[in-house]
């Protein structure tokens, strides 16, 4: 996975460059109270950059030929599935609140990905958020994101 290795190392390198530039702006010398704000980040980023150079050198030396970039198609799809659903979850969260969103997520996931039967998925989608509601909201009185229904006083969730 040479490309990926180099890619990540380059990303880190870029990041350290960014930090270095910023830290210099924050001054890396001494301030009135000792080392100034940029001091530590500067040296940290420098070490990080040095590390990435070492990693890249090693990679180029050990694997002069190209290997597969990423895991095969099938595996990749599983990951993409997960990621997309995850992002979808977080995006919907502020609007639908934690319970509705989880309900949808749990239900759809167990049905489509887990390939469980629809009534299992339904049970999961209803029971788990319900349990969570009683435990967390009523029991521990935690403040979890609520849906627009809540904000309009239409429902307790």
């Amino acid at each position, binding site marked *: 996975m040479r490309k*990926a*290795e180099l890619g*990540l190392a380059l990303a*880190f390198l870029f990041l*350290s460059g960014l*930090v270095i530039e*910023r830290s210099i702006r*924050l001054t890396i010398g*001494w*301030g009135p*109270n*000792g*080392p*100034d*704000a*940029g*001091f*530590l*980040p500067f040296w*940290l*980023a420098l*070490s*990080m950059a*040095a*590390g*990435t150079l*070492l*990693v890249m050198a*090693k990679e180029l030396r050990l694997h002069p030929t190209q290997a597969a970039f990423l*895991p095969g198609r099938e595996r990749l799809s*599983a*990951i993409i599935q*997960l*990621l997309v659903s*995850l*992002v979808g*979850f*977080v995006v919907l*969260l*502020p609007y639908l609140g*934690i319970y509705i969103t*989880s309900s949808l*997520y*749990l239900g759809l*996931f*167990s049905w489509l*990905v*887990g*390939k*469980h039967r629809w009534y*299992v998925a339904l049970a*999961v989608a209803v029971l*788990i958020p319900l349990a*969570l509601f009683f435990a*967390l909201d009523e029991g*521990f009185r*935690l*403040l*979890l*994101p609520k849906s627009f229904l809540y904000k309009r006083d239409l429902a307790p969730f």
Partner: protein
Amino acid sequence: MGLVVGVLPGLGAASGIAILLPISIYFDPTAAIIFLASIYWGALIAGVITSILFSIPGETWAVAVIFDGAPLARQGRAGLALTAAFLASFVGKLVAIIILTFVALPLAEVALRFGPPETFAVLLMAFAAVVGLGGGSVPKAIIAAALGFLLTTVGLDIVTGKPRFTFGTLTLLSGFHFIPVTIGLYGIGEILYASEERVLKLVGIKGQVMLRDVWEAVQALKRSLFALIAGTLVGFWTGVLPGTGATVAQFLGYGIARQYSKNKENFGKGAVEGVIAPQAAANAAGIGATLPMLTMGIPGSPTTAVLLAGIWIWGLTPGPRLFTEHPDFVWGFIASMYLANLMALLICLLGVPVLASIMRIPYGILTPFIVVISLIGAYVINNSFLDIWVAVGAGVLGYLMRKLGYPLAPLVIALVLGDMTETALRQSLILGDGSPAIFFARPLSGALMGVAIVLFFYPLLQPGWLRLKRAVTAAQVKKA
């Protein structure tokens, strides 16, 4: 109560104690402190439950246990991991309590001599122990540690008051809290990684439940006696030191156990010692932290700081006089430690079969459930949506790092200890007028720094050493 608080990610012992503090005013002081402290003890033991099962730290000091506990759970040996953790916690606490009972005052004197350079040296040791002993590549470990450290610098700089790396946004002003990051790196990252092979589906169902696990765990403890004892001692000492508590202790315990273990390579993949050591350390530290609290009025750890507030509220003054004027308070407190420890252990052990069987739930249901719990955990810390995104982002990073062989441990350690380390570093440099020599000028920190440096360079020396040996043997063979 403590057990419940410990289990829930995001709800910490310190908060639990703080919340119940007002109620405790109605109790008499001895009962009050027993009540609140028990929350601490319970949390110390139970914090590992979500760490092992879901890779989500239940408490600040249940992070190191994820390194080896989570792999064990994935291999279907969650019962063993949990039981070992509980037993180690129990023993760690017990030994610590015994030490405490006898050694209260003299130890306190030594701890008083600790200043920023010493604190920094100890923290550096924790780092070095894990970075330097990483089985994997050292440059990658350094990158990980640097990254973690850099993440802690985001936000308002404590010393100068300047905002760092906030890119002009208000949300980043408070920086990255390590719990969402850890939840993402381990919990979500793990799920992403495992989903490649749908591996979360579980392995072998253990019919016989508790006794077998307890037996195995006891065996494991006997074999890893060193890890257990070293962890406890290191942990107790760390707890006694002002300011550093269970959170720091867990990493030191882990690092030292790995250093002297006969099978280093197994660490990170499910070595039981990797579970025993940090737990013994963290629990011992929790107890040790009460020492400076009682004898000097200085909190030994963040959680004891809250307990200390309680002591003041109840009208008592910490210090040597506390021992002479209110012996019943002090000794009642200590006695209750023995009891609470035992009870917590029993309750946890009884719960192990139930807990372990959670892992048997099929992938399709367990995965989204873990995701939901993780995200809730991430959100609840600061009621912030940013934290949820942080967790997701960290999850992706965790996945990439795992795929490409970057060790996660240094990153997490840097994240947890970063703030403390930076403050200690800067304070020390101020003390030393800008010269790093201060670290070596003082005998105590000098010694600790020495240890840290050795731990750090150990892997670099090792290959060189091996090559030397091989060259020598090769030369001998040639001659013959």
